[in-house]
């Protein structure tokens, strides 16, 4: 198999996972200007919920094994939506006017609190949900075996990207959202219910984070600390792509995914360095990221 093809496949698989996490983070920032540090916790909760339910499904249900996929696609986002609404209504709406720094600190506090809540609910032991990972079989490409589940992740990420694009550009809610993104005050003045937009956006963003956690759960062991590991990577992606931009998150994820895969296959010593090198290089030439949102100048 050609080296290039291997890098492209590995890079796209990694990028798909990164994009699903980062798209939620970017959406929330774009609309609400909230740098949601707790996003990693929602990712972890999605993984825990999926691992618990999938494990229950395979141990207690007599339904077909493929039914576990339905569970995965519904359960984690559903829990994410509930949590998103609770956090936005219960915490963020009181603080959102106090600036980005305050919300960063508050969401960081939430990240730490959720880490302990996870331990209270699930304990500190490992959870496995590996059954769905092998259900789709594998494919040989150029002499190398790839797991179809991983390849399907590329498709899922593509669907997420298309749905987000469609929702933002072709629906009424998308127009409202874009109006809030470009100028929140003007949006309020023309009668848009910004509060409702915020809660829907936050819930959607959190659901995407939880979905990413749910999708990755079958290929890892789900343990405490999962969310903290991933949040740094997700930030690298959204900063590269431009905070608040979905297409930026997509391009950032692809660039970082391909760069990491190339490093591992060609020069493994650079595996870690290359992720942040991509981000640093982009920021040198475009300090606000590849697709930074335009900000209105207010006098």
């Amino acid at each position, binding site marked *: 198999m050609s080296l290039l093809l291997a890098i492209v496949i590995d890079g796209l698989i990694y990028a798909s*996972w990164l994009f699903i996490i980062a798209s939620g983070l970017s959406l929330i920032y774009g609309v609400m200007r909230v740098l949601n540090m707790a996003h990693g916790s929602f990712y972890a909760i999605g993984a825990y919920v999926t691992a618990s339910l999938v494990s229950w499904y395979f141990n207690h249900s007599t339904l077909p094994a493929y039914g576990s996929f339905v569970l995965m696609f519904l359960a984690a986002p559903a829990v994410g939506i509930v949590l998103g609404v609770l956090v936005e209504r219960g915490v963020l709406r009181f603080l959102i006017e106090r600036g980005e720094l305050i919300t960063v600190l508050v969401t960081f506090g939430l990240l730490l609190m959720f880490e302990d809540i996870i331990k209270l609910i699930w304990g*500190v032991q*490992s959870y496995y949900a590996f059954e769905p990972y092998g259900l789709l079989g594998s494919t040989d490409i150029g002499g190398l075996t790839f797991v179809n589940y991983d390849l399907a992740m590329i498709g899922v990420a593509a669907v997420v990207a298309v749905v987000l694009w469609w929702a933002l550009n072709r629906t009424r809610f998308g127009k409202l959202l874009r109006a809030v993104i470009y100028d929140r005050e003007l949006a309020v003045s023309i009668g848009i219910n910004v509060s409702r937009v915020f809660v829907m956006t936050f819930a959607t963003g959190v659901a995407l984070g939880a979905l990413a956690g749910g999708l990755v759960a079958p290929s*890892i*062991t789900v*343990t405490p*600390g999962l969310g903290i590991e991933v949040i740094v990577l997700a930030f690298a992606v959204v900063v590269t792509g431009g905070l608040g931009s979905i297409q930026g998150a997509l391009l950032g994820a692809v660039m970082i995914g391909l760069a990491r*895969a190339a490093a591992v296959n060609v020069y493994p010593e650079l595996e870690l360095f290359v992720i942040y090198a991509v981000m640093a290089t982009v920021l040198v030439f475009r300090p606000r990221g590849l697709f930074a949102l335009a900000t209105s100048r207010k006098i």
Partner: protein
Amino acid sequence: MKTKAKPFSLTMLSLLTATAFLAAPTAAGAQEPLKIALVSFYSGPVSGPVGIPSRNGADLIIEAINAGTLPAPYSGAGVGGRQIESIYVDEAVDPVSEYRNAVQRQGVDAVVGYASSGSCLGVAPVAEELQTLTLLYYCGSVRTFEEGPKEYVFRTMNTQDVENIGAARYVLDTMKDVKSISGINQNYGWGQESWRDFSKSLQQLKPDITIKTELFPKFLSGQYGAEVTALSRNKADIIHSSFWGGDLDAFILQASPRNLLKNQTAVLTTGGTALQSLAKHIPDGTIIGVRGSGGVLAPKSDFNDWFRSEYEKKYGEVVTFPAYYMAQAVLALKAAGDIAAQKSGNSPSVDDIRTALRGISFETPAGTVAMDRHNGHQASTEIAYGTFKLQDGKPTLENVKRYAPECVIAPEGTNSLDWIEAGFPGAVCN
């Protein structure tokens, strides 16, 4: 005469009374419980496979020590009569600061713990500074003692070089025609040194070995798709990995369906923790280690039978090797404390226990442990490896080989890496 005798009697009485008062606090002090901190990863990705079994193993042994129900050769309750009181400290939270907290604020007499080599390297100098008896139970870095002698720090299991020298010997004993190796190890001291010792040992024993791929992903990376591709593309006879905890599980889960571990023989030096939980994902033929001779590779003995059955009765699961090694460290305290008490006739002080620990040899469920390296502070035990086979849905290890300390451990006074590079002078292998 009477007038002269009376003051003498009074003086004697006063002296005896004073002596009794002075002696009383000392005796009471010696009877006080021995307060120890049990440190391991009780949260995070390592807690499930390592931290929790370690704590369970320690709890089981401590209960038996306090109740005086340990099997022979142990007898009597407590450590030289002193009951053990334990507290738990999570290694996942700043090990050095938490070490100081345990010693200086919670007033523990001794610390037993540390799974990560990084923790051990950080904590050892602090233990010396605070003059606190510390028994390292699981971490493997050779640097702990090779970087300077210690007075208060002991390690009751082998170092990481031993298991990698053992792995190299096992590979050559079971796969005579091995020609090439690859490695995937975590990117910190443990992983780097494990790979170095394994590859150098193998090349010393069979100089025509070539190295194909060397990978060092970040600790707790969790995603190994590109690594599996890199290893698959550059096929070797052997893939060595010292991955442990959640990283090991994730690697097995992701590599197995891609046939990596089927097409190339994996040597998983800590693979024993995944034996039960991921049995269906480990291909037959995979070489499995347990960092010594605990867990599934523990030799048959009455002590081992007792430990295994009591553990399963208490926790409802099969005992894995981290439980053996934490238990091993606690048993070192018991053995040393009993010897110290026997010598002095009193309940031992912590310093008595420390003195008795130096150079001691004691029995554990995993066999005999001799504290005979690094001036009596570093243990040497045999190291065992086996080849995985799933039989009737149950994980088993076949073709088990045990290597005696004199075959795989550098002689006292010799730096481990120097010994490997010199071609293992003086090694005695059966």
